[in-house]
């Protein structure tokens, strides 16, 4: 009897563990399976790796980013690829985890032999892969926004990124705060590389614009409650609160701000710009909140001579009809990443290699994207300016361009 019980036990234990593990890795095996299926059809293809946050705390970003990249590649391949050669994506999940991100990068480079990698989608997951990618000589186009991803440029030979620099976002926010005559501000930073980078950059910029940072608070990526931090800020009563965080933490801060009945001005950096932001924060709570962000939410409010207007409009309508979901500036950044790589492959002509993609990425000029108009150079691996950042505000539950 005991024997039977013991065997039943061990089987059930093994089963439960195996199913659990399978479920965790389910997303990425599925992805690679479908991708490999297409590869057998097109043996000759440009292999591009994707290293994104499909699960874990930053998956609010990762999933729409993956969608945007897949949409781009699908359309490109349907139109004959690049001079008849299609793009083949190899997509893995980095679980929003630095270590896993490096594992994924290694797998993409060594096992899948990709030409270039897109990702990670956040600053920490990107930073983990940078030394390895530089050593291996594989171009990495990151969708993380920390400036140190591409700076100092002499140590970032193979690294590029599409989101606006914290520097540019900080300048835009500082200009805006100055116009609104807000002098004393409180700063809430995410307790990781993204928040730290935002804080140190904004500190420098703030000095030039005569803005004082009166208090600094930290919030964790998985925090469910930011009321203690906001209570502290409330007692300081600053003119404005600037938050450098991503959802869901960013949404919870917005919600708690409303719950504590605070009426300072609340400004978010571009990182908060996932399409679910208003919904997650709650409509009442998000009202009047500001964000420094790209243009996708306010495309109809842009002037007709804006060079990006038609490009973004097409993107928005294609994405929404394909995925039945709203777009956000965040997935646009991933769309720009694959756009840049494809452009670099086109510029490479017949001799496409990791080296040629890297060299040609630096030559991209006046490329209209979703996040802005890209002008890259050997000294600038990002290529945007503060002009590509807009200040938006939630008015009546909708994002509105602040002029």
């Amino acid at each position, binding site marked *: 009897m005991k024997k039977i019980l013991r065997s039943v036990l061990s089987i059930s234990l093994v089963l439960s563990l195996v199913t659990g593990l399978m479920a*965790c890795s389910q997303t990425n095996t599925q992805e690679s399976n479908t991708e490999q299926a297409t590869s057998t059809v097109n043996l000759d293809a440009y292999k591009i790796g994707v290293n994104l946050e499909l699960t*874990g705390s930053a998956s609010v970003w990762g999933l729409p980013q993956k969608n945007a990249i897949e949409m781009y590649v699908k359309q490109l391949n349907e139109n004959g690829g690049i001079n008849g050669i299609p793009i083949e994506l190899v997509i893995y999940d980095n679980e929003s985890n630095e270590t896993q991100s490096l594992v994924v990068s290694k797998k993409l480079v060594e096992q899948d032999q990709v030409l270039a990698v897109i990702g990670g989608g956040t600053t920490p997951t990107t930073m983990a892969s940078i030394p390895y990618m530089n050593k291996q000589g594989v171009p990495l186009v990151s969708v993380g926004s920390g400036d140190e991803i591409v700076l100092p440029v002499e140590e970032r030979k193979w690294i590029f990124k599409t989101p606006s620099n914290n520097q540019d976002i900080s300048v835009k926010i500082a200009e805006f705060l100055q116009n609104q005559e807000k002098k004393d501000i409180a700063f809430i930073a995410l307790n990781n590389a993204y928040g730290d980078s935002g804080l140190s950059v904004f500190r420098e910029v703030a000095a030039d614009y005569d803005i004082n940072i009166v208090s600094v608070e930290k919030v964790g990526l998985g*925090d*469910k409650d930011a009321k203690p*931090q906001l209570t502290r800020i*409330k007692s300081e009563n600053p003119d404005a609160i600037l938050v450098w965080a991503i959802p869901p933490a960013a*949404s919870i801060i917005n919600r708690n701000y409303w719950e*504590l009945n605070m009426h300072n001005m609340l400004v978010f950096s571009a990182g908060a710009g996932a399409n*679910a932001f208003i919904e997650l924060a709650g409509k009442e709570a998000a009202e009047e909140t500001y964000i420094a962000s790209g243009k996708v939410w306010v495309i109809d409010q842009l002037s007709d001579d804006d060079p990006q207007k038609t490009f973004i409009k097409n993107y928005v309508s294609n994405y929404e009809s394909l995925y039945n979901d709203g777009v956000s500036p965040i997935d646009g950044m991933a769309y720009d990443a694959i756009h840049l790589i494809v452009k670099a492959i086109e510029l490479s002509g017949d001799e496409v290699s990791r080296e040629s993609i890297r060299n040609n990425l630096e030559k991209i000029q006046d490329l209209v994207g979703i996040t802005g108009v890209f002008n890259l150079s050997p000294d600038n691996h990002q290529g945007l300016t503060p002009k590509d950042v807009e200040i938006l505000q939630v008015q009546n539950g909708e994002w509105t361009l602040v002029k």
Partner: protein
Amino acid sequence: MDITDLFQLLFSGLSVGGIYALIAVGFVTIYNVNGVINFAQGEFVMIAAMTAASLVSAGTPLWISAVIAVIVAALVGVLVQRLALHPARLNGDVVLLIITIGVSTLLRGLALMIWGSNPKTLPPFMKGEPVNVLEIVIPRQDFFIAGIAVVMMVLLFLFFEKTMLGSALRACMMNREVSRLLGIFPNRMALLSFLLGAALAGVVGISVAPVSLATYDMGLLIGLKGFVAAVLGGLVSIPGAVLGGILLGVLESLGAGLVSSGYKDAIAFLILLVVMVIRPQGIFRVKSGKRV
């Protein structure tokens, strides 16, 4: 930082503490009847939160969704006891403990497959602007959380002290073998304890989801905090677990507000370490050795 801010922190801490208390009670009930720390406790919270959120977004009225969600969580608890723990009940505690860890990974994985990794929202049960009491602002949902914590604790008290079934469960918590002599079936009590523990976790799930959002991996941290609260209370007494939960919530909130927000979670685990080293019997218990 003046006195109003201090009270503000205290109130935020109390509402979070109520949550921890309810989870801790679930831990204690299950631990004492089954002799095992159920590390899947946080996953029951998650299941209820996710079930309620997806029912509401599918158009079911909020209160009905909430009731269904608690029932679903309780049923999952019963299934876990019957399918995973009951067959292994004759093995040592360590085996049972590892099973609950496996179950928690399994449930989290299943949730990821069913609901995906995007956070979900559940509308608050009490809508409207936060309330101002003597310059302290209290979100309406916090009243709900505090209210539900009090109601649940009163119900638990009545159940354990005034009903036959509750007394039987309590007897079984004190001594499994002797209660068997008195005609109580420990196996049924084990099932009942999981039903109760999971239902309590379910109530927690639907109360916190409107505040903290529902995600497939929310159970891990909330379960650990509940565990810390239960240990603070000495792991064997229900009033101890309640006090432990409230104390933990308040300390966390005061720590984040007065010391530094970066150390909020560290505070909980630091308290756990200190208690484990200095007072392993829990901070509220004077004498040890009550368990036979």
